[in-house]
């Protein structure tokens, strides 16, 4: 038996290697999936051209890297080694701060050097964009108010600004901080009379006095309990500025419970063998106390912070509908539409009682995600007038050889017609620089 040990081990090595390939193909063993969203490479189809230029090989290698058997435990094992031995995250989007606090990278970027550099190198250009956006927002608020719809902004806390003492040192700081969206917008909102709620400012005033975490050590969003208390206040604010009554709610006593989504979301995103535990969290239950009143319609447009509200509030009992427009793109909780591009926007705006633009401080750079400009145009102009402007822009694009040439390449890459690409560019310009094409926006 002992004499055969090398032979047995050799055969076992082959079996193990083949087992990995088999698991990649047939997934016979159920494995804890990795946390987070990522794009899986499709199975590449070879052609003579793609083989000869090496692109098929490169795609195949990416595909195998993303799908081989036992990939998940292999990644977790190495991530655990790096995290445990060096206190580092292998996920480039997650940064381990002081005292084990976890931060999403873009919050750290926002704190140290401002995210403006993702948009422009020119601070004045960004300041101008903020100013135009704030003016348009004030105009849109007024137009919608006249049509019976209350539009308002909720500024939510970014972890960098609420808990800066746990941020990692600014090792990678290479640029002079530029204008910060939060600072600029709060000033501009006051200047132009935009209705908004600054939850970040409120949290900063109470962060040292409350007995619960406003944002958890291992999470990137506001904590469930903080979100619950905050939304209770936001609903009161809505009623005060809107008038459409909202059913009263009662909050119970806080209690400790197992960690719920997303209070540990960044820790989960580390994809370790043993996920770091979140220190005990408090939660609070919400109960609607009067079911006799009517239910207004609510549209929430913004980032992922609103998920916490959907987990903790009986929204169906409070609102006729709560449509969640995720970054003004995918729609959640709307049985009829998946995407905002499918909507009859004028009708949708008129039907809603409340529209809440909800962004955390680090996401304010994309406030509205083009919703503000597009909506204003729809409310101020007829379809014929908008088409006329679009036609003018398209004609301009067609007369510009360089532009047209670039669009030809873009259309070929995206597999769309040149006409479609031209219209897409025209629509983009109308949404992002509406003041250049629509005079009424400047009034």
């Amino acid at each position, binding site marked *: 038996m*002992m*004499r055969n*040990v*090398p*032979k047995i*081990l*050799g055969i*076992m*090595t*082959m079996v193990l*290697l*083949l087992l*990995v*390939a088999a698991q*990649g193909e047939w997934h016979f063993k159920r494995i804890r999936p*990795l946390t*987070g*969203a*990522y794009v899986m490479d499709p199975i590449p189809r070879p052609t003579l051209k793609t*083989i*000869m230029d*090496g692109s098929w*090989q490169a795609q*195949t*290698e990416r595909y*195998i890297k993303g799908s*081989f*058997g*036992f*990939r998940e*435990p*292999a*990644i977790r*094992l*190495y*991530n655990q*080694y*790096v995290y445990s*031995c*060096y*206190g*580092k995250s*292998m*996920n*480039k*989007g997650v940064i381990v701060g002081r005292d084990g606090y976890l931060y*999403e990278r873009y919050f750290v970027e926002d704190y140290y050097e401002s995210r403006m550099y993702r948009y422009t190198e020119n601070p004045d250009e960004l300041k101008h964009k903020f100013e135009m956006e704030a003016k348009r927002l004030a105009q849109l608020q007024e137009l919608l108010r006249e049509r019976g719809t209350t539009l308002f902004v909720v500024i939510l806390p970014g972890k960098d600004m609420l808990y800066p003492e746990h941020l990692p040192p600014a*090792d*990678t700081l290479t640029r002079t901080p530029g204008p910060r969206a939060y600072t600029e917008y709060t000033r501009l909102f006051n200047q132009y009379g935009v209705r908004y709620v600054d939850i970040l400012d409120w949290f900063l005033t109470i962060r040292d006095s409350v007995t619960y975490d406003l944002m958890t050590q291992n999470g*990137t969003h506001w904590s469930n309990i903080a979100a619950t208390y905050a939304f209770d206040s936001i609903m009161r604010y809505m009623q005060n500025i809107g008038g459409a009554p909202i059913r009263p709610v009662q909050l119970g006593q806080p209690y400790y419970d197992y960690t719920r989504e997303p209070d540990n*979301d*960044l820790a989960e*995103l580390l*994809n370790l063998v043993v996920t770091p535990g979140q220190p005990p969290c408090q939660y609070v239950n919400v109960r609607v106390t009067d079911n006799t009143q009517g239910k207004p319609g609510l549209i929430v447009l913004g980032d*992922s912070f609103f998920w916490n509200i959907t987990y903790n509030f009986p929204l169906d009992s409070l609102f006729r509908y709560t449509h969640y427009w*995720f*970054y*003004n*793109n995918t729609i959640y909780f709307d049985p009829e539409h998946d995407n905002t591009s499918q909507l009859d926007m004028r009708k949708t705006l008129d039907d809603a009682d409340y529209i809440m633009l909800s962004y955390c401080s680090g996401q304010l750079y994309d406030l509205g*995600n083009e919703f503000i400009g597009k909506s204003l145009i729809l409310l101020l102009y007829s379809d014929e007038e908008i088409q006329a402007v679009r036609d003018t822009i398209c004609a301009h694009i067609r007369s510009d050889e360089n532009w047209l040439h670039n669009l030809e390449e873009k259309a070929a890459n995206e597999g769309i017609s040149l006409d479609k690409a031209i219209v897409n560019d025209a629509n983009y310009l109308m949404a992002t620089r509406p003041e250049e094409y629509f005079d009424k926006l400047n009034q």
Partner: protein
Amino acid sequence: MVFSSHIFLLYFLPAFLLLYFLVPAKWRNAVLLAASVIFYAWGAPDFVLVLLVSTVANFYIVKAMDKAQSRKTKRMWCAAALTVSLGLLAWFKYANFFVDNVNALLTSLGLGVMGWTKVLLPIGISFFTFQSVTYVVDTYRGVNRPMKSLVDYVVYIIMFPQLIAGPIVRYNEIADQISARRRLRWDECLQGFYRFVIGLSKKVLIADVIGRSVDMALGGDLAAMDTGSAWITIAAYTMQLYFDFSGYSDMAIGLGRIMGFKFPENFNNPYVSTSVTEFWRRWHITLGTFMRNYLYIPLGGNRSGLWRTYFNLWVVFLLSGLWHGAGWNFVLWGAYHGIFLVVERMTGLNKGERLKWLRVPVTFVVVMVGWALFRIEDLGQCWTFITRLFAFDFTSLQFPILDAQFLTTLGVALIFAFITLFPFGRKLQQWTFYTEYRPAQHIAVWAVACIMFFFCLGALTATDFSPFIYFRF
């Protein structure tokens, strides 16, 4: 295809080994040949035909050379074979360099530049060219008879374990193994597997980790680098290069052993050398051997007087530098080493072990400074970096030098690079590489090797896996 890729580790290698072990022994070379063609074509489909045609041409030219009766005809065929091999190397590797320099000269003279389409460099050409040179020359010298089988010859030239980066196996070292390998031994296969995993770990867990920080450090403003950071950076690159290259050689030797080949060693703890001369006996050994046998000795070696010996040495290292890359920095690097070799020979410092504890660190520093020439291709940037090494400006160490994983890995690399200075290290090396394990030892080492293999797989995958909480738009 590279050894540290998922497709090689998880699909190509298992499928090849399965087939290789299952077919009858007489078919193994054919399986190895087919696998090698696929292996090469995967990364360079355009060049596989060039490789095969030149290899086949060489086979028949050498056959003709062997049959030739007169010495003159033999020499003519030998020259033809070398022209095919070295001509391809010259064209693919040095044509761009030549034209760039001619154009630079023409520009400086105020003349127009030559039109030129860049030639792409086929991977591994420097290595398989040298292997074919050893075949031609060894046959010409009568060291070996030419191979009878074309398949066997092509296997020798393009065998995938050493095709891309060596070791450069001389024809006479492996001729018998190709035509008549002894039957497979499981303990040899296992030893080969262990060696492969050691190489993979050196590459993935040490060289790649250190390399990421080195790239960041050298990608920054070199003029602003403080002296401490500069020395740590170059020490790190010194370790990265060693663990990367020797790791690759370990993988190649291990794969060869699994298949029943015994490839020559390519590294022997080069950083414990007491002189630059010794360093070159321990670093890339197969290249050194090739240069000695096929360049230094034909140039006259040390048989033509002292000054001619110095000249030959220096020329060999100049050309060795050029072999490493078509760039002036490589030429300078070769010349730099050549100067030290000549000086050591003049002063007798190339012999003996006197003052070992002083000479080892001095040699290490000389080699490290040389690596700066090797790594930084822009000569201006290179000079800036070298001046920072000796600027004595110890202000503050900066990221990425202060990264804990980098520093720890560098520490581990330094320990392993110098461990054989001590008896314990030499024992460990002997036990790891040259001991026939007992069954119980096999079980323990095999378990560790399997875990390390899986761990390396994790490192290769996790490095650029960064999912988002949600998709953003």
